[in-house]
């Protein structure tokens, strides 16, 4: 049984307590996503509230309740992109790089310490993939790019993160 899908279906039926449970279950994840992307708690508060309003409005029409998580983050990202339009617009996708097979898993402390220093596009995929545990395909749906692009962004992001950590003296 998929507990999130069941919760979404109960919400779509109009069960009020299910709506409250849905918000309580996902609020911390959503707020942390906004916090990590926007950088400050105040903006995260506003973005989270805006996202919940949009989520509630779109919820009756969601046809695939089992895909609630990527759908939620897609709305959050759209809300964020409206706010950070300038930052998203100024970045062109760098030429695709080969993705190394020997790409080591990231250290949790390394990731959380270095996230804020990364550019928006790279930070976004790291947060979605490593912090919120979305699959490559789900990340691709949220960001609106092919899975291959997500993979290459992830590779680049990890490398940038390691370089930044080496510069800070965390080098291995």
């Amino acid at each position, binding site marked *: 049984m998929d507990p999130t899908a069941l919760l979404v*279906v109960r919400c779509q*039926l*109009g069960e009020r307590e299910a709506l409250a449970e849905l*918000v309580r279950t996902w609020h*911390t994840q959503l707020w942390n996503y906004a916090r990590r992307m926007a950088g400050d708690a105040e903006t995260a508060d506003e973005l989270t509230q805006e996202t*919940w309003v949009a989520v509630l*409005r779109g919820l*009756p029409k969601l046809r695939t309740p089992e895909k609630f998580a990527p759908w939620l983050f897609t709305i959050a990202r759209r809300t964020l992109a409206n706010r950070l339009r300038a930052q998203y617009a100024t970045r062109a996708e760098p030429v695709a790089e080969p993705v190394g097979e020997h790409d080591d898993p990231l250290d949790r402390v390394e990731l959380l310490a270095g996230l804020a220093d990364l550019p928006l596009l790279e930070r976004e995929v790291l947060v979605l993939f490593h912090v919120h*545990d979305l699959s490559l395909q789900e990340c691709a749906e949220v960001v609106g790019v092919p899975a291959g692009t997500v993979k290459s962004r992830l590779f680049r992001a990890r490398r940038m993160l390691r370089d930044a950590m080496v510069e800070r003296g965390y080098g291995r």
Partner: protein
Amino acid sequence: MKEFEEPTLSADAVLAGLSLAGRVRYAAVGLAGLTVALLVGALWATEPSLPLRTHVAFGGIVAAGLGWAGFAGWTLTRRVPLFARDRVIAGVLALTFSGATAVGLVLVAATRGGTTAVLTASATGLVLVTAALALLVTGRRRRAELLRRKAALTGR
């Protein structure tokens, strides 16, 4: 890999900011506005000679009724979510209001107008009742589909 900070905005604060009630209220207000506009409009159209200030008054009432109907329609389609249960309740309300309006229109037309007026009123009433019935049927179908899904997910 998960590491979440405690949000500065609580889930309860979010819930307080989301308007979870009042959706059906909008449907009732809109339907009442539409009913008033149609019935007063029928009286207005079938009254042979009226002083200017009565025309203005009828016009004002019809405009206000249509205004409320438009506002409720816009709110329900753009601003607030209409979940399956709300859609069924809104459908029942729509059927009740449209049925009453249809009867009212035909009565006004029969007592004050000729055959053409009765036929026009009947056709208008029929369109309203059909539209309301369609809303109710699609609402009930969606609710049944979701109930089936819920049963499948809970294994019951």
